[in-house]
């Protein structure tokens, strides 16, 4: 019931948060263009060569390599560096944007939208960044440990097994990594939600309690992410089918290709917002009761040092704000 309700809420959030979705898509587009535009300039080399017909009809690896013949190494280095720094920037931007998205979802209906969004993004940025670092560290340590063990086992089993065994064992290892990594990722998501809902300031405790939340609701949290991943997958499959059918040799068809690609990205942004909305709803429905939380807080206080100073927070409790708008 909770899961279904959360999904329903998430889908409704898609309908009611179009500006948020557009902002997420726009951020994504701008970041991607920082690397794509220089590459477009380089691809312009193809504009006056007869060989480029092959790239219009399909894909020609030999032509691409020929175009880069005299600057192969430098192109690889530049593109590699650009992509690396893009990934770093994207992580920071995404952390910033998720604060805004959660602010809008947890405290809906506030205007002006842009002020609300960016105020929230700024307010929670550093806390979310600390959570990200915590999540990466914890997840990284666990994954490294597991992979060391698994790697040893896979190597031993592969020695005596068939040629395909290493492939299947490797795939299995990959799936396990994915599942464990997803748990840590979900803990990060719910920690962020908790931070916004309860205006948390102690990120270590928040992450731990979110991990507990995720483990207690493991099937529900996985169901949510799987549902929205499936929706995204369907969109991608439809796009691939369209791309396979579409020849993309004329300007009109190329524009159709571009439009369809941006539609896919927009849809994915929408599902991302929908997932956050569903997770917020699930958190609100399933988070520990107040009394239980007090007991936990006492225990945690006994273990930890003096509490950090409480920052000024919004006047209404988060739950009341969500209820009011309904």
């Amino acid at each position: 019931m909770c899961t279904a309700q959360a999904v329903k809420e998430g889908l409704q959030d898609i309908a009611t948060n179009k500006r948020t979705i557009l902002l997420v898509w726009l951020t994504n587009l701008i970041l991607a263009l920082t690397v794509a535009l220089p590459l477009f300039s380089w691809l312009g080399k193809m504009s006056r060569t007869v060989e480029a017909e092959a790239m219009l009809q399909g894909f020609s690896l030999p032509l691409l390599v020929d175009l880069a013949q005299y600057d192969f190494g430098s192109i690889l280095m530049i593109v590699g560096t650009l992509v690396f720094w893009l990934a770093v920037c994207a992580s920071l931007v995404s952390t910033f944007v998720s604060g805004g998205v959660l602010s809008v979802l947890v405290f809906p209906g506030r205007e002006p939208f842009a002020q609300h969004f960016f105020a929230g993004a700024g307010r929670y940025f550093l806390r979310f960044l600390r959570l990200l670092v915590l999540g990466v560290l914890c997840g990284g340590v666990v994954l490294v440990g597991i992979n060391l063990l698994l790697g040893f086992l896979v190597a031993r089993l592969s020695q005596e097994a068939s040629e395909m065994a290493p492939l299947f064992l490797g795939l299995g290892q990959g799936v396990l990594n994915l599942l464990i990594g997803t748990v840590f990722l979900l803990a990060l998501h719910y920690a962020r939600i908790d931070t916004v809902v309860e205006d948390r300031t102690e990120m270590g405790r928040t992450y731990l309690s979110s991990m507990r939340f995720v483990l207690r609701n493991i099937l529900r949290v996985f169901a949510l992410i799987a549902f929205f991943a499936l929706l995204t997958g369907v969109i991608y499959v439809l796009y691939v089918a369209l791309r396979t059918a579409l020849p993309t040799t004329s300007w009109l068809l190329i524009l159709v290709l571009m439009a369809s690609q941006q539609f896919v990205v927009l849809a994915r942004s929408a599902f991302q917002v929908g997932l956050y909305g569903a997770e917020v709803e699930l958190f609100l429905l399933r988070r520990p009761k107040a009394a239980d939380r007090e007991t936990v807080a006492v225990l945690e206080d006994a273990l930890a040092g003096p509490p950090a100073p409480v920052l000024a927070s919004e006047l209404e409790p988060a739950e009341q704000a969500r209820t009011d708008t309904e």
Partner: protein
Amino acid sequence: MTIKNRAILLTCLAASCVAAFAAGLPERAEAVVDYRIQVRLDPKTKQLHGQEWISWRNPSQDQVEDLWFHLYLNAFKNSESTFQKHRGLRPGTKESVYGWVDVLSLRLENGTDLTAGMSFEQPDDGNKSDQTVMRVKLPQPVLPGGQVSVRLAFRAQLPDLRVRTGQSKGTFMVAQWFPKLGVYEPVGMRGRTTGGWNCHQFHPSSEFYADFGQYSVEITIPSNFRLGATGQLQWKKDDGKGQSTYLYGENNIHDFAWTAGPDYVVMKKKFSGQADVLEGEYKQTASLLDRSLDEVRLSDVEMIFLMQPHHLDQLPRYEKGARLALKWYGLWYGRYPYRTLTVVDPVGAGGGGMEYPTLITAGTTELFSYAPFDRIMFPEMVTVHEAGHQWWYGMVGNNEFEEAWLDEGLNSYSTGRAMEQGDGGRGMMVDFLGLQLTELDVIRLQNRPSWRYDTSLQPAWSYQSGYSFYSYTKPELMLRTLENHLGKRTMARIMRTYHERWRFRHPGTSDFIAVANEVAGKDLSWFFDQFLKGSAPLDYEIAGISSFQVPARVGVFDGPKGRVKLNGTAEKQPKTKPRVEPKYRSEVTIRRNSDAWFPVDVLFTFEDGHKLLKHWDGKARWTRLSEEHTSRLAKAELDPEHKIELDANWSNNSRTMEADSRPAAKWFSHILFSLQTLLGLIGLLA
């Protein structure tokens, strides 16, 4: 007899001698060395215990005072061998990695002990720790045409499978396993000015060189092992105590390899000269090569496949490759003279892709049984290539140490052509998830202007890097370019003549060039000097094109009716004569970006559809070609038929007047979308 008749007779005699020399496929080698070997495999210790009886005939006019042997297995003895110094052997390496061969005794036929005269030599790098070459002083020199027979006992330790020799998962691949004589090259062979032993150390990127002769090898292995070996099985005996002995023999070969293991599944197929080749194909080949039908006919061959059980479903792929090689190499170069061809499906990656006389190792993986990986033609290609080595290296026995291109390059070229025959001329090597690559694509991907520090004609161990490119790829591109330049017919005759003339002999590069010049009827030294002996890559580009209306005449002109002044306004057109169309002058600037040169064609295509082909000798650093026509130039293409496959960059070989941004826009969109997908994933994670 009159002088005229005498001249006619002499001419006919000379012609018939030439014809006799040019035509006819030698069926046997001038045997220099005979080996009789008895060997027993001990699977527990992975050791070979063997005895050899070697007869060597002095093919030179020199008195030869010593014998030089290859002891290849000593390359794996320790970290100080020349081989290991390049490859690296770290402390803590497990003992099973080591391999070696010890000569336990060496005597003349009359019992004279020769061990006192044994010494290790290092003719290539002076590395005193390397023991892959052994010299043995003889008490008496071997006279020209004379013979010496020695008896030798040896023990060899096989390593874990590496460089196609050793043991893996209980299966043994036994190659370069016995003390083998080098080649005594007389004066004149391969351009030598003095006779001497050619016996190189074992290097990571070098292969082998030995004399032709007869091999007779008795191999004793556990009875539950299955055996595949060079040559034909003569007999088999079981001792009733779990050991079996096989006798294999073959003539006209220069090496012997074998493999044994309990898991092999042995399958036999037949290649038939009658059933597997159409009569039309024989006639076509005979006509192409200017040979008689009898000369091009092929014999039957028994194909023996030793398969790993889990690769049995891929037998058809190996079989296809073997048939392609036996058929097309046989038709083009000369029939396969042996009765058997053994194809080994190796255990482990270290055992695949190698050639020995009448035995090859191929290679595949279970993954290639499943779509879409079954569209990668690797098993077929490697089988064709290794089987093809029976012609280039096996029968034409070049020195693989010093002139690796003569077998690898010629064979790579031939493999490409044979693969094209196998799939209707496309030569598709990869057809995988939308990525299609032909044989030509694959080799061109490796050709880069940065390959300019070595040549194809240098010792295999002397490359800075890129042995594979210089020995395989560049010669293949070179031969394909030569074929396009001379024509398929001439090229086919060059290759056939070279094979016929040097079958069962040891040619050098100059011998190949001599045949090419002779058959082509022109001096091709400009070509071979650049692309074989030189290091420069080749790249032409169209640096610029322009097309403008020829301007009106201005100035003072002296005509038949006197001096006329023109000021550039439109001249009056006479009403009675046809109207003169405006003319456009089109100019194409071509640059040679490389030090190497090659004659090129340039195709002008005009807006009205008219095409004009111009030719440039390609020698200058740049040139400008121009043409006047009633229409503007639409595009210019250098080497429009892509005959110059050595050109490292085809993307700069054409230029259009109008830019077309559609390809760039389309791929920009794909790149943008891919980046957005990546960023979306980061957004979810972060």
